[in-house]
C-alpha cells in the first residue's frame, strides 16, 4: 500500500512539475474500433490523429497549450462505445472528441456527449441525417457520394437499368434507398434491389437474380471487409462484366483484391493520388513519422486528420475550450487539408470535393473526374443558418 502511495506521489509530483511551465494540455478523445469490425482501418485513423497532434504541437500548440490524445477502444459497437465515451467524458474529462466510428457506436456515444456537453466531430462517411447540437461531421453522406457514379454510368455507358445489391444494415439500406431515388429522378429504372444479412458472404442467389434481371449497371453497398470482397469475387467468378460501382471498397482493399477489382468505380472525397501540394505534404509527413509502419491514408483516416485541425482552429477562434464557444466556432473555421479547403457550415455537415475513381489492373485507383464542392443537401434543417 505504501509503495503504491509513493508511486502516486511521484506521478502527481511529475505532472505538477510539468504544468509549472506549460498550461494543462487540451485533451482530445479518440473513440475508435481497435477491436471489432473497424479494427482493420483503426490503426490508420490513430496514426492520422497522432500526426495531426504532433504537427500542431510542434508549432506551439493551441492558445499556448499542447494537445493530448486519449484513445479508447469502442469495440466497433454500441456497448463498447458507451464504455469508451464514459471513460473519455467522465474519467479523462476530455475537451473535445474526434470520432471515426460505426453508426451504432456513434449513436451510443451521442447521449453521453449530450450529457457531458463535449464537442464531437464525426469523421466517418455515413448514411446521413444524424443531428445533435454537439456534433459536426466532415465526411460524406449519400447526397455527395451517389451522384458521381450514377451520372457516370448514365452518360458514359448509357445505362438505364440499374441493379442494387447491399448488406442489410443501416448504411447499406440508406445508401441504396438514396441511389434508387436518384436513379429514378434521372429517368433510369432500378430492376432489382437485394440484400444479404450483414455478415452474409454467399451471394449465389442474388447473383442469379442479377443475371436474370439483365441490368445495364450494378451498384453495391455492402458492409466492409469479407461481404464486400466476396461479392466482388463471386461476381467475377460468375462472369458479370457490366459497369460496377461499389460504395464500400477503398484503395487498400482494391489493391489486395488484385485483378478481380479491375474496373470497379468508386466515389470518394479522398484518393491518395490527389495531385495537390497539401496532399503531397501530408503523405510525406505520414511516411516520415511512421516509416515502414505507416498505414496507407484513406477515406477514413484523412477526415480524422483534418478534424483535429478543425478542432484546434475552433479552439483558437473561440479563445478557450469552452464547449459552447467551440461548437459555434466549429461551423465557421476552414481547414485546408489533403482533401482541399473544408468548412462544416452546411447544417453541421460539409460541402466536399468528390472524386470519381476507377480501379486499374494493378489495383491502384485512377481519378476519372472530380466534382467541386458537392453540397450535402438537407441533413439537419434545424441547424440551418
Amino acid at each position, binding site marked *: 500500500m505504501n509503495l503504491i502511495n509513493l508511486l502516486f506521489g511521484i506521478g502527481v509530483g511529475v505532472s505538477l512539475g510539468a504544468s509549472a511551465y506549460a498550461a494543462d494540455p487540451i485533451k482530445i478523445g479518440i473513440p475508435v474500433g*481497435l*477491436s471489432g469490425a473497424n*479494427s482493420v482501418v483503426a490503426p490508420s485513423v490513430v496514426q492520422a490523429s497522432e500526426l495531426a497532434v504532433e504537427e500542431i504541437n510542434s508549432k506551439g500548440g493551441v492558445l499556448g497549450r499542447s494537445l493530448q490524445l486519449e*484513445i*479508447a*477502444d469502442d*469495440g466497433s*459497437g*454500441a*456497448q*463498447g462505445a*458507451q*464504455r*469508451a465515451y*464514459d*471513460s473519455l467524458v*467522465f*474519467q479523462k474529462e476530455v475537451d473535445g472528441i474526434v470520432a471515426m466510428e*460505426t*453508426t*451504432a457506436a456513434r*449513436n*451510443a456515444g*451521442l*447521449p453521453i456527449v*449530450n*450529457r457531458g456537453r463535449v464537442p464531437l466531430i464525426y469523421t466517418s462517411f455515413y*448514411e446521413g441525417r444524424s443531428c*445533435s447540437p454537439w456534433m459536426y461531421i466532415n465526411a460524406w453522406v449519400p447526397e455527395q457520394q451517389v451522384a458521381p457514379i450514377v451520372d457516370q454510368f448514365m452518360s458514359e455507358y448509357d445505362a438505364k437499368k440499374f441493379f442494387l445489391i447491399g448488406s*442489410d*444494415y*443501416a*448504411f447499406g*439500406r440508406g445508401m441504396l434507398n438514396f441511389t434508387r431515388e436518384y436513379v429514378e429522378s434521372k429517368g433510369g429504372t432500378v430492376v432489382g434491389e437485394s440484400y444479404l*444479412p*450483414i455478415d452474409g458472404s454467399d451471394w449465389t442467389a442474388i447473383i442469379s437474380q442479377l443475371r436474370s434481371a439483365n441490368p445495364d449497371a450494378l451498384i453495391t453497398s455492402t458492409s466492409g471487409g469479407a461481404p464486400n470482397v466476396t461479392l466482388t469475387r463471386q461476381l467475377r467468378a460468375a462472369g458479370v462484366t457490366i459497369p460496377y460501382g461499389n460504395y464500400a471498397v477503398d484503395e487498400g482493399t482494391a489493391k489486395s483484391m488484385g485483378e478481380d477489382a479491375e474496373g470497379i468505380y468508386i466515389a470518394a472525397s479522398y484518393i491518395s493520388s490527389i495531385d495537390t501540394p497539401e496532399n503531397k505534404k501530408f503523405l510525406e509527413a505520414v511516411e516520415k513519422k511512421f516509416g515502414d509502419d505507416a498505414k496507407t491514408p484513406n477515406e477514413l483516416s484523412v477526415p480524422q486528420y483534418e478534424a483535429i485541425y478543425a478542432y484546434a482552429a475552433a479552439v483558437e477562434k473561440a479563445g478557450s475550450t469552452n464547449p459552447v464557444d467551440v461548437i459555434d466556432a466549429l461551423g465557421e473555421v476552414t481547414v485546408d487539408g489533403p482533401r482541399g479547403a473544408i468548412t462544416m457550415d452546411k447544417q453541421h455537415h460539409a460541402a466536399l470535393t468528390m472524386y470519381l475513381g476507377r480501379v486499374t489492373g494493378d489495383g491502384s485507383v485512377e481519378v476519372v473526374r472530380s466534382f467541386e464542392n458537392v453540397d450535402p443537401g438537407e441533413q439537419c434543417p434545424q441547424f440551418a443558418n
Partner: protein
Amino acid sequence: MPDTNITVSRTHRAALIGCLIGLCVVAVAPFTLDIYLTNILIRTLLLAAVVMTVDILWGYTGILTFGQSAFFGIGAYACGLVFTHYGFGPGWAFAALAIALGVAAIVAAATGWLAFFHGSSPIYASIITLALPIVLTQVIYSGGSFTGSSSGLSGFPTYFWDLKVWFWIAGGFLVLTTTAGWLLVRSDFGRVLIAIRENEDRSAYLGIPVSRIKTILMVFAAMVASAAGFAYAAFSNVVAPELVGFQLGTELLIWTALGGRATLLGPVFAAIGIDTMSSWLSGAMPFLWKLLTGVGFVVVIVALPRGLAPLLTALWHRFWPKSNSMFTEVKITQAPASRMLRASFGDTPPLRIEHLSRRYGSLKVLSDVNLVGHGTELLGVIGPNGAGKTTLMRCISDGKERTDGSIHINNVEIGRCSPQRVVGLGVGRSFQNTSLFDTLTVAECLKLARYRLDGAKLFDRVDTVALPQPALDILKATGLDQKLSNETRNLSHGMKRGLELAMVLATEPSVLLLDEPTAGLTRPERMAIGEVLTRLTRDFGLCIILIEHDLDFVRAISNRVVVLHQGAILMEGTVEEVVASDLVKAVYAGHHEEEVA
C-alpha cells in the same frame, strides 16, 4: 433431533440479512464512486442480474442457454421502440415494461416449446437457444428505420434522472432478484431443478413434468432478463442489435462459468468484476484481452468445472469452519393411504394390454402382446435376454414407445403420453440399473418423488415429507429412515435399491413395474423386499409386474408367470405350470447361467 423450525427460518434469515446488506451497499455506494465508475456499474449490475438467471437455467437446471441475451434485448428494444415511435411518460413507460415482459414471456414459451419435449437432447436444446438470438438479430437488422437496423435507436426521450437514482434502481433490482433466486434454488423446488439436471429421465419417470418446468423457468428467467434490458435501455438511452446477439449470450455463459456455476453469487460477482475490469483492460489491449478471456474460459471448463467461487469458499471455510450442516433435518409422516387403494380392488383391471407391438425398423422386438394385470396380483415376467422384457416395461410407461396396440391403465388409454403423464395415470417404474440423484439426500429424493402429488415450495423448504405406508415399510426394512440426511451417492447398493423402490412407491402407483429389483442384493435384503412386495399386492391392492431372472424368487412371490420369448408371449400360468413346461425348458436351455441364484 434439533427443532426444525429454526433451521428452516435460518435460510430465510440468511436471505433477509444478505438482502439488507446488499441494499445498504447499493444505497451507500454511489456516494463513494466517481461518475465514471457509477456509469459503468449501473450497466454491469443489470447484466449481473441476467447472469444470475443464466446460472439458474444452466448451473442449477442444466439448460445450456446461449440465448439469454435475446430476452435482455427484447426488454431493451421494447423500451427503445415505444419511447421512439409511440410516446413517453409514466403511462407509456409502464406500457413498454408490460410489453417487454409480455413479449419476452411469449418468446420464451415458444422457445421452450421448440427446445424441451420428452426425448429432446440437451444439445438440441442448446442449439435452439443459440439460434434464437441469431434469428432475432436478423429481424432487428431487417427492421429498417423502425428498429434502426444496425445503428440501433438512440436519443429517444427517457428519464434523465440523477446517476444515483439509476444506480439504486439497478442495484436494487439485482439484490432483489438475486435474493429471490437464492431462495428459489435453496427451496424444495430448487431440489427439483437439480434433480432435472442430474437425471432428467428419472425425474420424468417420477411424474415430474420436466419439460413444463423447464419452459416455465425459462419464461421467468426471460422476464427478469427483459426487465434488466428495459432498465438498461432506459438508462443508457441506446439500443443496438448487439444487445440481442449471441456474442453477449455467450459472454453471459463465460461469466457464469468463471464465477462458478450453481453458486448463484459466484456468477453475479464474476459478472461485476470481469465486466468492470474489461472496461479498463480491453481498451489497453483489445485482442489480447479477448484471447486471455478465451484461454481462461477453456482452462476453467476443463480443470475447474465449478469455477472460481468454490476455491474462494474453500478458503473461507478454512478460516471460518462450517458451524452447522447445510441439510435440513426432515421428518417423515404418513400420507393418507386412500389414493393408493384407488380402483385397484374394483372390477376393471389396472393394466390391460392389447395387441401391443414394437418395431425398430424391420426388427420386431414385441409382437401382438396381450396381457391383463389385476389388482392384488404379482405377475412375474421371465424370459431369456433379448426377449423384450425391458421393452415391454418401456412401452407401458411411455406412450411414445409402442408401434401398435393399446394400453389401458385403470381403464384410461395412455395414448401417446409422455412418461410423466403415464405416472399420473398410476404407473410406477423402477429401473434395471439404479438411477438416482447423486448429490441429493435421501429425504430430498423422497420429496422429489412426492412432487407430483404434493408439489414443492417455490421459495421455502418444508421439514416433513408424507409417504404412503408401503414406502415407509421399505425405509424401515432397509434402515434408510436413519439416513435421511445422507447424500445418495454414499449409500450401499442395497440401500440405493431400497430407496429407489421407496421413491417409486411414494408416487402412489396402482401398477408397479419392477425391472430386476433384487439384482445384486444379499439374500436377507431379497427376503425383505419380497415380503414388502407380497404385502403391497395383498394389503394395498397393487398390480406388480416383475421382471426377474431368479426363478426361486419369482416362485416365492408371484401369483402368475408370463414367459416372453422373441417378443411374444410363449406361455402364461402359475409358477409350477411354467417350470414344468417342456417348452420353457427348451427356451431356457442355453441360458442356465443366468438362472443361477
